[in-house]
């Protein structure tokens, strides 16, 4: 306490002191710690009093200066964490997609400071965010051309990540990308689908190869090829990486370019409604969002942010956001009656330890039964899981893990496919939400037809992370250029939900 007062005194003293009085140095046989020890308390107390006096006078002077007009002190404390009152674009959701869109918006703006972007994230610990709970894989083995192009573009981005997301004087970004490839195994019924997908993937430029069971056995001697008729193996640009690093790289670069970050929850919108009449006499309400109400965490304090454009990148919670605008609560046979078909779905990921398992060359293996596993680190740990059946979807109110599910659904298939996994131990597990698109399990990108200035970028059902750089660029092109420029994702617009034309991935799982 006295040391603090001494330091305060000295800081103010540098301006006031004219001469310093050096203390006397007594040499003593017992070392320097015992010098300057005086036996009388009188002089010490007097010194203390004068030191205190200096400090008190300085504080008094400071308070007087603050009280006079012209100083910036005010008795009203303003919460410094509130978002700004006005922003051009508000991105709801601070996951990898939200920050990717923020980065690309700043990257593509024509003038410095051209767009004022605000990213609102309700949970800065990311405890329930899908991004950080994902397995982190990237693959090009899709059946839709758009998905393959998105994956290729994202892999391209990650290859040159330091060129894109490198900040001056900061450490380079290290995604810890494991170039291990994906391996899909097909049984006899689905082998033809795999062949078709293979030709689409090759046409799009993905480096994939087909393997027969004998070649599989040669390449991966630890694999049991029982029931496998064909396998599809990614040679390049496939593997897994650390999603937290990618998220932080996007965030760091976006903040360095001037994106404003806010920790809060969007609880309401203020919008204006234009009522239009169709030819047959029905009314259509076209809404335009005027401002977003951002509520501070654990508090009733809120800030209405006036904005021009709102981007819905809230992931698993995007459905709730559109409900606030009345989407889905209109009459059943109208456009307003169709809700955003995105809901959270819980998926379990189990970490297992098997010392005799596959080695460094083990790919991200996905069996035709839906069970997947991949290597994690170098110590014989693996990550495994499976997508549950539609009828057995677990409860999404929490992120508790059901270990019984592993015993019943995951382990038998794993042990059948890789005999070494018969002796494994589950060391830990976690659960995360998919932003599951109940309509066709592919992303929804584009403006909502009834809300003039809300852009959707959600519903990726497990592929959001691997497509995030390319989708971020696409949404930024939509907003700033008006149309897609690099990859045409018009097939992923909300229109397909209105016309009930699903863009299904014809995959083997």
């Amino acid at each position, binding site marked *: 306490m*006295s*040391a603090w007062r*001494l*330091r305060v005194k*000295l800081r103010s*003293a*540098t301006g006031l*002191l004219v001469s*310093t*009085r*050096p*203390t006397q140095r007594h040499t003593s046989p017992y070392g*320097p*710690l*015992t*010098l*300057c*020890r005086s036996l009388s308390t009188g002089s010490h107390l007097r010194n203390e009093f004068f030191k205190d006096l200096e400090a008190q006078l300085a504080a008094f002077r400071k308070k007087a200066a603050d009280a006079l007009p012209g100083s910036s002190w005010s008795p009203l404390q303003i919460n410094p964490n509130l978002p700004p009152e006005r922003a051009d674009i508000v991105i709801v959701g601070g996951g990898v997609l939200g920050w990717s869109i923020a980065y690309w918006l700043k990257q593509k703006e024509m003038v410095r400071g051209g767009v004022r972007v605000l990213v609102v994230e309700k949970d800065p610990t990311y405890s329930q965010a899908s991004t950080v709970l994902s397995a982190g894989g990237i693959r090009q083995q899709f059946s839709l051309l758009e998905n393959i192009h998105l994956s290729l573009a994202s892999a391209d981005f990650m*290859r040159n990540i330091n*060129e894109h997301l490198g900040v*001056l004087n900061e450490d380079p970004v*290290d995604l*810890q*990308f*494991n*170039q*291990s*490839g994906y391996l899909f195994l097909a049984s006899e019924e689905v082998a033809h689908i795999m062949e078709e997908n293979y030709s689409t993937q090759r046409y799009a430029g993905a*480096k994939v190869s087909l393997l027969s069971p004998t070649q599989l056995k040669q*390449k991966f001697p630890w694999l049991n090829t029982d029931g496998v008729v064909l396998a599809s193996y990614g*040679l*390049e*640009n496939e*593997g897994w990486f650390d999603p937290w690093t990618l998220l932080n790289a996007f965030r760091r670069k976006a903040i360095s370019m001037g994106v404003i970050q806010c920790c809060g929850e969007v609880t309401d919108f203020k919008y204006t409604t234009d009522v239009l009449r169709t030819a047959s006499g029905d009314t259509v309400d076209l809404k335009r969002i005027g401002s977003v109400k951002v509520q501070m965490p654990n508090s009733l304090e809120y800030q209405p942010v006036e904005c021009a454009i709102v981007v819905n990148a809230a992931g698993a919670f995007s459905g709730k956001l559109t409900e606030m605008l009345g989407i889905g609560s209109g009459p059943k046979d109208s456009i307003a009656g169709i809700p955003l078909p995105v809901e959270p779905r819980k998926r379990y990921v189990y970490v297992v330890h098997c010392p005799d398992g596959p*080695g*460094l*060359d083990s790919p991200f293996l996905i069996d035709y039964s839906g069970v997947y596993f991949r290597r994690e680190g*170098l110590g014989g740990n693996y990550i495994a899981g499976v997508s549950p059946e539609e009828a057995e979807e677990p409860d999404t109110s929490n992120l508790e893990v059901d270990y019984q599910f592993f015993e019943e659904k995951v382990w038998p298939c794993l042990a059948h496919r890789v005999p070494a996994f018969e002796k494994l131990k589950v060391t830990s597990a976690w659960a995360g939400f998919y932003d599951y698109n109940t309509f066709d399990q592919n992303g929804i990108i584009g403006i909502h037809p009834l809300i003039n200035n809300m852009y959707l970028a959600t519903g990726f059902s497990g592929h959001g992370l691997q497509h995030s750089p390319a989708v971020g660029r696409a949404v930024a092109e939509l907003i700033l250029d008006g149309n897609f420029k690099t990859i045409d994702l018009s097939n992923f617009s909300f229109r397909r939900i209105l016309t009930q034309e699903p863009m299904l991935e014809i995959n083997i799982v």
Partner: protein
Amino acid sequence: MSAPLTSLHRCCQRSALLLHVARQRWSSSSASPPPLHTRLLLFLTQRFYDVEMLLSWRSQLMRNQLQKKNAYYGYTQRFYGLDLASAYFILSLKGGFRFAGQSEWFYADQKGKFSWDFLNHKDTLLEEVDMSYTVINYRGLCNLEGQRSLRTLKLRGCPEVDDWLLARLHVFQDSLEDLDISHCPRITTGGLAALRNLKGLKRLDVSSLPGILSPGLVIILLEEMLPQCQITATGYDYSLNDAQGEEEEEHMQRQR
């Protein structure tokens, strides 16, 4: 009680020094301007964003130069064929190569000069390529992609060789027998996993890779992954950690 006094003494000395310096500065500014480099530094500290812009331009320029060096030699391919284009690319980057069926190596010297004799061997595939200490990167490898009978590839000490280039080496999976990626600073364990495709590899040199964190374990896993391959991995410190090392030292001292 004496400790705060000693700290007070030190603080007094420091404040005296500060005052002294400040007095000197103000006195010297009235007498003569500070030297040019000090004035320049003070000028730059006032202009942070300009300095940031200049530095980012500089790094962008260096990156552009690198990409230009590694560009796709499309015209050369069209006029001279795949093999001569690859050969020309290698020589422009100051590497060396040997044609299949020939025994002499074509090298470019330190200044980048090379003889044009290689033009005489049209449509001969390259068998051995030595790109050690060159700036080849992922983009540049596309110039070598057509060489399906490449047997030896030396990428020793290349600063731009990273995991993605290793992943691209799958195009040589049928023919590559000898690969040298020692001393490359950007390669990490994830890239070494990409060597799984090179099943025909007979000799692999992964010495002194600073990017690998647990070299002993990684080398063992590599040996398991490529059973027919002879792996050279020198330049790593496989010693035990510090506590055990100190115990050993004490033991030896006591013995003496």
